């Protein structure tokens, strides 16, 4: 019994408990306001709305834990989607794994661009990625000569990734789950994961204790880029088209919001994959509940903003309490 009490106390005090409480609250509100939320079809929609944000959110968590930020992910999604679309247009028979590899490769290249500017040329990441957000977006236009990738350019087997898999759950959700598990193990169990936290927590101390902070920061940007590249092909599968102006616009806001709601501090050094996953689900659930409750789409953005503010204020209050308890 004592052990159970300790476990419970540990759980309540953990960083993720706040967002979990919000999530349960949202599900309870949905049960009252919009019972249709629990219909199988709707839960399935929810399962399809989260994978893209989860996938990129895992990379963003690493970047933000390193005390950096990546505003260019939405544009990377667009470039990767356009490249994959053009590949399919040229070679309709392209095997899906090859197309995915191409998307990831594009993401790695663009992530390396960010990493180079931040670590070698010492341009602060908010400036770097503000710039590359525009540059990469322009690249998406150049690749397709301003045209969009239409549904008939994309093979049916790509679209089916977001519909089914051998075990019934869409492949897209499985990819996201896999990436979440890998990130969780990497950040919380591996030596490199600890180095990421050390770099964000105190870069000078990390460098003086022999860590290659530049290498770790570069690695996090490249990983984030690679995952955004993967999200590009996931976008093509989920929505059946890629538009150079529309695809991924405002996506960086969603991803950063989900990461921050999940308790990752933009001041670096703290944050978990579990928190980000919960943040992603919470954001998607809120949007979904608004839709099901027939509150028109015009409430969505305001709800996003309100929930970001509530989450960071609650997290700050919780942190102060935790500090008091420790003292």
């Amino acid at each position, binding site marked *: 019994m004592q052990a159970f009490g300790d476990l419970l106390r540990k759980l309540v005090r953990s960083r993720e408990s706040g967002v979990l409480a919000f999530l349960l609250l949202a599900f309870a509100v949905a049960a009252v306001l919009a019972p249709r939320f629990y219909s199988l079809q709707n839960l399935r929609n929810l399962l399809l709305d989260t994978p893209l944000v989860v996938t990129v959110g895992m990379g963003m968590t690493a970047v933000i834990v390193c005390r950096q930020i990546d505003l260019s992910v939405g544009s990377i999604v667009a470039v990767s989607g356009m490249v994959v679309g053009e590949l399919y247009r040229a070679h309709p028979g392209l095997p899906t794994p090859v197309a995915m590899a191409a998307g990831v490769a594009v993401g790695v290249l663009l992530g390396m661009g960010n990493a180079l*500017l931040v670590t070698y040329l*010492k341009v602060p990441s908010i*400036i770097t990625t503000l*710039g590359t957000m525009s*540059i990469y977006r322009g690249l998406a236009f150049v690749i397709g000569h301003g045209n969009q990738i239409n549904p008939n350019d994309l093979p049916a087997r790509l679209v089916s990734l977001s519909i089914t898999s051998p075990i019934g759950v869409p492949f897209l959700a499985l990819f996201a789950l896999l990436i979440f598990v890998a990130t969780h193990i990497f950040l919380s169990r591996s030596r490199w994961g600890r180095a990421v936290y050390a770099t964000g927590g105190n870069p000078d101390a990390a460098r003086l204790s022999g860590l290659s902070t530049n290498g770790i920061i570069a690695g996090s940007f490249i990983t984030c880029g690679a995952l955004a590249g993967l999200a590009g092909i996931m976008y093509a599968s989920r929505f059946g088209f890629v538009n150079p102006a529309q695809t991924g616009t405002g996506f960086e806001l969603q991803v950063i919001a989900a990461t921050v709601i999940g308790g990752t*501090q933009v001041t670096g050094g703290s944050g978990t994959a579990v928190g980000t996953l919960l943040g992603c689900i919470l954001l998607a659930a809120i949007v979904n509940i608004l839709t099901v409750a027939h509150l028109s789409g015009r*409430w969505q953005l*305001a709800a996003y903003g309100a929930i970001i*503010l509530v989450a960071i204020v609650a997290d700050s209050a919780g942190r102060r309490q935790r500090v008091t308890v420790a003292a």
Partner: protein
Amino acid sequence: MKLKGIRWSHQFTLLLLIAVAFLVSVHMSRHFLDPAYLLTATTNFVETGLMALAMTFVILLGEIDLSVASNLALTAALSGVLWAHFGWPLPVACMVGLVVSAVAGLANGLLVTRLKLPSLTVTLGSMALLRGAAQVLIGNQSITGFPDWFAGVDQRVVGPFPAITLLLLVAAVAWWAVLTRTIRGRMTQATGANRAAARLSGISVEAITVRVFMVSGLMAGFCGLIMMSRVGAARWDMAQGRELDVITAVVLGGTDIAGGEASIPGTMLALILIAVMRTGMGLAEINPETQHVAVGILLAASIAIPNLLRMRNGQKAQPAK
């Protein structure tokens, strides 16, 4: 090289770039030599310029305000709705809009100072919340049909000059004077350079931060009214993404994103450079996406190249923050 020398050379670089951009623009389109056209084109950049002045102080403090463009949209939407749907007199509706924009700025400032939250996340939240509120207010419609005295502020002229362009110039001089010639301005610089030292020397760091955020909000609201008059409509999605242009102008102008160093002339020169490039490319029928690419490269290069030169001189580059 002393720091003062670097700043001077940065502004000199901007002047050179403006000259180059001007010559290229003239080469691409003859219209660019028409002074009347150029003077009219300046009115497109007044809102960005005014918000960049306020943003220079925000970034000087080492903070950031991502919510300015959303605040602009909310002020326009709120004033427009009060006037069009509730029948309020337009001046009163505009005053209410301005008050709300200042309150939104105040709220940002209080969250940053009282709860010690990073301004990046606070204003990321208010960026979504304020634009979302504008969307809740007017949905997908536009509010138009403003009375003659209000509409078309960009067409008012003083001599050959558009009135709002002159307003921007006056505001720039005023901001420069406040920053460099008043005690408050020096205190703001001191706060940005070293917060702890500023606090220990008796400066109310929190009060300064709150005030700077409030001015940033109020200025955004004021720009909302200008834009509503200029384009003759209020919409929830007006000036979407404009915060990036504003921040680009400030950082390109030589203000250190980490705080402590700011230059109003630099911000204005950077604004002129962006304006010449965008107007020139627009005349040459280069699409907006390519224009974004050029401005993005400019932004990254404006910090990367000086760092590269400093490294070649064997000095340490400014550390990334």
